[in-house]
């Protein structure tokens, strides 16, 4: 088994150095070996949803925090908008 850490890191949007990737690959391979026991269990006929039911509530406006409060905790904001780097060149 060999896990491509840089590919996963790219999918997960996490910068990982090459040195660390090597150590992480070893860790993940050990963990995957440990959880691999599930492969040997027969679950034929068992549903792969856990039987959850949808819960609905009425669509009513209820106060929580204001938009201003929520935007305030963003790392960068301007005029009550969240500010991000340029997306379209």
């Amino acid at each position, binding site marked *: 088994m060999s896990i491509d850490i840089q590919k996963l890191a790219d999918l997960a949007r*996490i910068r990982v150095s090459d040195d660390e990737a090597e150590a992480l690959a070893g860790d*993940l391979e050990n*963990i995957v070996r440990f959880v691999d*026991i*599930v492969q040997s269990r027969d679950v034929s006929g068992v549903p792969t949803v856990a039987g959850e039911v949808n819960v609905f509530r009425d669509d009513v406006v209820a106060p929580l925090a204001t938009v201003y409060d929520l935007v305030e905790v963003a*790392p960068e904001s301007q005029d009550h908008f969240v500010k991000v780097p*340029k997306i379209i060149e």
Partner: protein
Amino acid sequence: MIAELHNKIANGEVKIAALVGEYVARARADTRNIFREVYSDRDIAAQVAVAEAMLAEGKSTALTGIPVAIKDNILFAGHVAGASSKMLEHYTASYDSTAVAQLRAAGAVIIGRTNMDEFAMGSSTENSAYGVTKNPLDEMRVPGGSSGGSAAAVAAHLAVVSLGSDTGGSIRQPAAFCGLVGLLPTYGTVSRHGLIAMASSLDVIGPFTRTVEDAELLYNTIAVQDSFDSTSVARKKEKSILKKKIAVPKGLFDDGADKEVKQKFDTVCGKLLEKGFVIEEIDLSHFVDALAVYYILQPAEVSSNLARLDGVRYGDRMSDKSVLDMYKETRGQLFGKEVRRRILLGTYVLSHGYYDAYYNKAVALRSLIRAELEKAFETYDAIITPTTPTPAFRIGEKAHDPVSMYLSDLYTVPANIAQMPALSVPSGKTTEGLPLGVQFIGPQHGEGTLFVLGKMVEQFPL
């Protein structure tokens, strides 16, 4: 403990300001890294004033004026909730979690937030971005985790009771390591609104206390159905009628639990026999699979839940070069090692080609684990196990081997997987003086029975 304190507060023997002052002074003087923050004197004085007014107006509850600590992942409006991560070091909660709102409505005084494994990922608090918490009963050892600070705060008399969160044992394991009572409530009975999410189908807020009676009181205070959490359910308060039969999963000690853990466990079972209980070994073939299932489902949910921490909406941002660079640098620099490890593991088990082999298989096994336990509860009041395979381990002992760290959750994980309640109660000490715990797992909404059993064990001379 709370009932006694409450009586003294009610009859004027104890003044709320003095009581809170004593605890806060000890919490401020602490050198074991138990609190991430003890709130300001002004803040605490304002809460004390609310409690005193409730008392004066005859509106006090048992918790009015009682100093409480909360885990660093539970939101309290206007206060930092950092999940003991660099990612949220500067995040201030915009609203109260439902659990905190319930505590405040009862007049409890929240004195501070406690250290934890970063984003609740760990079993020792060694994964906190701010260093390990020392176990007050042996400072060379960990207090357990992830809610290690909340356990240590109560154990060290820095708070009367505290709140933690339990995803795979994060309340019960530190309770056992610190000689306390710890409750994992039935999933959904305590709202997750305002709990910084780790693995949403497993996360539950619950109490650390010195007595089972206090755990029951705290649970009664925080368990309310809540429209802010769509997985919230109403409590079903069924009267506990004991069958007087308890089950022990077969093969419980096959993976080599500590000798003294087994001895104390056998002693507790012996005392229950004397009380007229029947204790039977039963075959729970999927019980031991729960840990493997857990280490698939939990990282999968982690990778999804923590995607929101990307430098845009909360906490800090590490790069402004491009959007992609902002994501990668922020997450790469501000998440600690274990968090990154679990996000990558979750990404792996959910990725194309592995989803069926791991995630779907784990979901199916989860149904089997739950069904097997439900069937057992037709015959038995509860399942009994030691809470942990060993007493508190030394700081650093397991820090470099993730799988051996994960194994300390062997007995606690099945209840989370099945979304059933479980209670850890102290079961005496090892010859070295380290506390141990026994765990009762009950059916959904079976807290009443767990409290009856827990109160019984409390009376045993162990």
